[in-house]
């Protein structure tokens, strides 16, 4: 330890972190306003806009639709991303490097370009405005999150465990099932959560590859931002935020502590 940071720097840092969280903290009271428009509560807190939100079936349908899409997309990306991370772990460095570059590509390519690309190909394959199309696109975009989380968990694993298992006569399938996957389960869990959140929140690609009747929650929110800014939008924003907080807490408790690992292992 070289002692604490000088207090002005520390105060500035905490001020900045406060500003980061502030917008979300502010929409909570706004969503509880007793007025008919977006503002802080005047006299009392009121749940009227939450009631209106739950009474409006369109929001409920959009939530279910987003949930189905995110769950399916996360399932596909967890399966493919985990297997791929295992493969990369033991492949020759040159091959592994090429695979890694390909699999991480969706993180780097700007969303608008992916949206154009998906739109063009999905129209040819008649996947526009279908669950299959939206799930497939979201699964592809979520694979990198799973891949990174599982790779990070694997990098802390002793490769001799795999040798020991195969030396004792286990097939690759058995080694994976009984030895490797249980050891990196927290990493898989983190990857699954991140994949779910990414797929649940995806907006731009969904805007391009869906038309009417396929509104996800973010898409509904986007449309109402354009047309009518009602307090219901603030309620939806709060609910999405609470869902994210819950998932992140679950990740902190059950997931691989990838953050600390990232800090500890600068390779």
């Amino acid at each position, binding site marked *: 330890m070289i002692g*604490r940071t000088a207090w002005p720097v520390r105060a*500035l*840092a905490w001020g*900045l*972190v406060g*500003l980061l969280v*502030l*917008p979300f903290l*502010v*929409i909570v009271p706004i969503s509880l306003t007793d007025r008919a428009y977006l503002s802080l509560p005047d006299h009392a807190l009121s749940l009227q806009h939450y009631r209106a939100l739950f009474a409006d079936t369109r929001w409920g349908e959009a939530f279910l639709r987003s949930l189905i899409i995110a769950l399916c997309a996360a399932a596909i990306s967890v399966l*493919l*991303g985990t*297997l*791929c991370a295992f493969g*990369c772990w*033991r*492949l*020759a460095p040159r*091959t592994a490097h090429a*695979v890694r570059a*390909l*699999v*991480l*590509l*969706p993180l*780097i*390519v*700007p969303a*608008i*370009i*992916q949206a*154009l*690309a998906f*739109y*063009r190909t999905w129209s040819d394959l008649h996947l526009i405005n279908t669950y299959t199309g939206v799930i497939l696109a979201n699964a*592809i975009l979520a*694979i990198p999150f799973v891949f*990174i989380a599982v790779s*990070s968990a694997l*990098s802390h694993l002793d490769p001799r465990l795999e040798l020991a298992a195969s030396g004792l006569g286990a097939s690759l399938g058995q080694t994976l099932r009984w030895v490797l996957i249980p050891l990196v389960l927290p990493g898989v869990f983190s990857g699954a959560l*991140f994949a779910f959140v990414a797929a649940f*929140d995806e*907006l*731009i690609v969904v805007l*391009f590859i869906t038309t009417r009747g396929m509104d996800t929650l973010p898409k509904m*929110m986007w449309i109402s*931002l354009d047309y009518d800014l009602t307090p219901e*939008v*603030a309620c939806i*924003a709060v609910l*999405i*935020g609470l869902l*994210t907080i819950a*998932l*992140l807490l679950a990740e*902190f408790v059950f997931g691989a502590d990838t*953050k600390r690992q990232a*800090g500890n*292992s*600068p390779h």
Partner: protein
Amino acid sequence: MTARARLSPWLLLVLPAVALIGVMYLTPLLRVLWLSVSEPSLGFGNYRLLLTNATIQRVAGTTLWVCALTTILTVGLGYVIAYTMVHAGRVEMRLMLFCILLTFWLSVLVRSFAMLLLLRNDGLVNQLLLASGLVDHPIQFVRNATGVVIGMVHVMIPLAVLPLYAALRGIDPALMRAARGLGCGPLRAFAYVFWPLSRPGLAQACVLVFIFSLGFFVTPAILGGGKVVMMTEYIRLQFEQTLRWGLATMLASSLLLAVLLMLGLASRFLNMRRITGPAA
């Protein structure tokens, strides 16, 4: 070695993901690149517009300076947070990290919407300013570049803090103690020891933030209110309103090539692997 690797059963494990991404992702991307040189006619006619069309140049200019300003502010402020985190106690560090990760994972749409409620003319910030008598008229924070930059910095800070934190943690604290022991004041020790050692991390964070800023769509659309047209928004306009696929794909391809070029240069000169994933 390569022959054995090709036969390796581990290759089967990467195959599903590689096949899916290769067929359903990479191929569509390459088709976008191809469209940019084949629509409406074969050749580099679309790319010539980059040099001749004043609107495109203005949009590109706006994009570049907004992203540059965002990058400088984000990395500067992110450095302060990362520096404090590195030197904080365990509890303080975890608390900061949780706040950063929470913002990182919170939907960009939700965050930009919340920002809009704070910054618009009858928003909370202006209400506070008016009530305190500091201003007579609300200050215009949204529907202009100010709002876009504030919103983008807000969204980007976690993205800068995480790699900066990893980089700053790697600096040996004994070096600072040695500098202090040799008679340096805290400021001099920082300026001559800590700062130079943190420059590679800073460069990485800059590249990362700049690249992601270029692709921003939601925040400029919500906080710019159509007044600050960035490249992504302009591409969407070409797609939705004028259906000029040649132009849209040319701009998309240029953006993609710019991003990949920057990343390529950066990984040549900086160790980017620390960011793209803690590979084995």
